[in-house]
């Protein structure tokens, strides 16, 4: 492996880090309230709206956006495109942190937090949620295993020798397992809402939902890598990695294109185009999702100039990431119609505080990790004085 990731050892407490700490504190306050007075005291959830942003964003979107982990390890380690090696570690770190926070989000959302272990012993294999739970549980540990060598290198000495000895020979199993488990639960997350045919809006309710979830997760994997690599290299003033990102997003033309064809084809096949222009919140939200989150960025990506420009590529990838975020929010929240609700759901301040707090914590730990562990490969920019 030609690349050599290293710790950045930059100044840690920047103003941005303080902002993260403020969000983390507000989230912590909301979490304390939730465990003192119950979910109802913090969240706008009721019997008509059992799931809110803690499921729609923290869990469903979190899992989708962590897809950079398995897509890059597939690319660099399984089909052996070693040229992409420098992006694997940061993507792996994001995936590991992402899944950790999916689980933390779940711990806040489920009513009986202390009972989280029960699915290990009580199986209902008819339930898509059972499969999601099992896969997330195993995959989380697979990710920890995959990331262990990085931690070992960071600590060095005997720890490094030990971790290398343990992981080296069997790492390939975990790399493949990571891809297999990801394909399983990314798709099963889409199966989840198929249990509510009368509640989910026809623009999203399709037997193809598992495939759409899987293909959109695969499509968002590399754009997510571009998104965070650009942010990180700007924020830490590292050299940009365009020579990797440009060819990487060429693959996205195909993966996003596949998702687009499936999604649009499904609309025609099920003959639900009539819902597209009825002016409802749902149809508008769908149009934004498809137009700005799928079609526009695809058109941008097929333009070579866009792929070569750092700013334009970042913009296109932001659209793709935003499109997948909106898709998950649409499927779990916007498109969810309660037959008897008297009010519609909008997240409370408390719910937003928890979600924002979790994201801030994730960014905080990411920053901590890249500062002290060998994750990033790009070299520091020469400061032109």
């Amino acid at each position, binding site marked *: 492996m030609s690349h050599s990731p290293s710790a950045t050892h930059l100044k840690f407490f920047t103003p941005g880090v303080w902002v993260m700490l403020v969000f983390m504190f507000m989230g912590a306050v909301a979490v304390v309230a939730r465990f003192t007075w119950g979910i109802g005291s913090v969240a706008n959830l009721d019997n008509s709206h059992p799931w809110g942003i803690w499921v729609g964003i923290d869990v469903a979107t979190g899992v989708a956006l962590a897809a950079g982990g398995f897509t890059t390890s597939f690319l660099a380690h399984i089909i052996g495109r070693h040229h992409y090696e420098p992006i694997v570690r940061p993507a792996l770190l994001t995936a590991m942190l992402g899944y950790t926070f999916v689980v933390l989000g779940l711990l806040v959302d489920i*009513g009986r937090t202390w009972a989280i272990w029960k699915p290990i012993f009580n199986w209902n294999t008819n339930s898509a949620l059972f499969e999601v739970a099992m896969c997330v549980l195993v995959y989380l540990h697979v990710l920890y295993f995959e990331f262990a060598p990085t931690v070992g290198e960071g600590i060095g000495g005997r720890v490094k020798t030990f971790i290398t000895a343990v992981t080296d020979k069997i790492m390939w199993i975990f790399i493949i397992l990571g891809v297999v488990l990801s394909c399983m639960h990314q798709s099963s997350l889409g199966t989840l809402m198929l249990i*509510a045919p009368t509640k989910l809006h026809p623009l999203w309710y399709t037997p193809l939902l598992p495939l759409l979830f899987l293909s959109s997760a695969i499509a968002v994997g590399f754009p997510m890598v571009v998104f965070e690599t650009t942010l990180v290299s700007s924020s830490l003033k590292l050299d940009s990695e365009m020579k990797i990102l440009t060819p990487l997003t060429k693959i996205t033309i195909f993966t996003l294109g596949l998702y687009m064809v499936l999604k649009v084809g499904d609309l025609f096949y099920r003959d639900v185009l009539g819902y597209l222009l009825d002016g409802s919140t749902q149809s508008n939200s769908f149009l934004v999702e498809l137009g700005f989150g799928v079609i526009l960025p695809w058109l941008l990506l097929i333009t070579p100039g866009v792929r070569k420009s750092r700013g334009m590529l970042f913009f296109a990838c932001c659209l793709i990431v935003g499109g997948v975020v909106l898709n998950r929010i649409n499927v779990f929240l916007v498109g969810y119609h309660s037959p008897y609700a008297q009010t519609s759901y909008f997240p409370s301040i408390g719910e937003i505080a928890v979600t924002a707090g979790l994201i801030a914590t994730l960014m905080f730990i990411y920053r901590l990790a890249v500062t002290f562990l060998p994750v990033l490969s790009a070299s520091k920019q020469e400061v032109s004085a």
Partner: protein
Amino acid sequence: MKLNRRNFFKLAGVAGAGALATGTKKAQAWESKAPEDPFGCLVDLSRCVGCRKCEQGCNEVNKLLPPERPFADMLLLNEKRRPDANSYTVVNRYFTGKSDEQDHLLPTYVKIQCMHCQDPACVSACLVGALTKKENGTVHYDVSKCIGCRYCMVACPFEIPAYEYFDPLTPRVRKCTFCFERIEKEGGVPGCAAICPVEAITFGKRSNLLDQARTRMKKDPARYIDHIYGEHEVGGTSWLYLSDVEFNKVDFQDLPSEPIPKLPETIQHSLFSYLWSPIALFGVLSVVMAKAQSKKKEEDES
């Protein structure tokens, strides 16, 4: 990340063979898991007088908390209510335009509670199997398995399960129990059916109740609309309704006759029975990875 190529292909071969063997079995059609001869209740909306005694009976036999406003308070009928964490059943009043000879509008009262579906979506959804469909027709909730994910509430087409949102650590899903312990005993009747003063709620075997409903409709065809709600809705429910007004005028939904779990369960099982697809994928990726690695080795050596 070195790996022994021989072991690699061996493993991949086993995986592939396993996938083939199980893959052929996967195409089993979905089968209903509905009990053959469940109990049920037949609610006759044309008989109900809206006395709310069923709400009271339910509250007492299930030892629920006393209500905020007494059961005798009929002003509650001015608002549309839903079952909640402390009331498993509620009665709502509707004016559908039906009137008597003096043109006085006549109310229709509708009791709602868990329908105890034959193939319940909640049971299919519950990842830990805390919800089960019993042989006697009950959709039963076992709090000791519940983790509080509320997927049952997402799944239920009737929007029945309610949640204790203000209990910080041990909230429960709350819904009509069909008085499971009572009806398990010989001659036992659910609390609501036992107390109903006008026999608007008839308890019995579902098959007998369907016959009875048809008999009533035949005897008095002018009185009833020609629809037994729950006979076919979502594949059939243990609770059945007869009515003298159109069901959609009293907040009953038009529901498909297909059992709701059919599609998601068919997808889950055709993809994941015996884990054939993950095993096959693992096998394929092993081969791909081994080839890529040996290719790299050759390149490095040359």
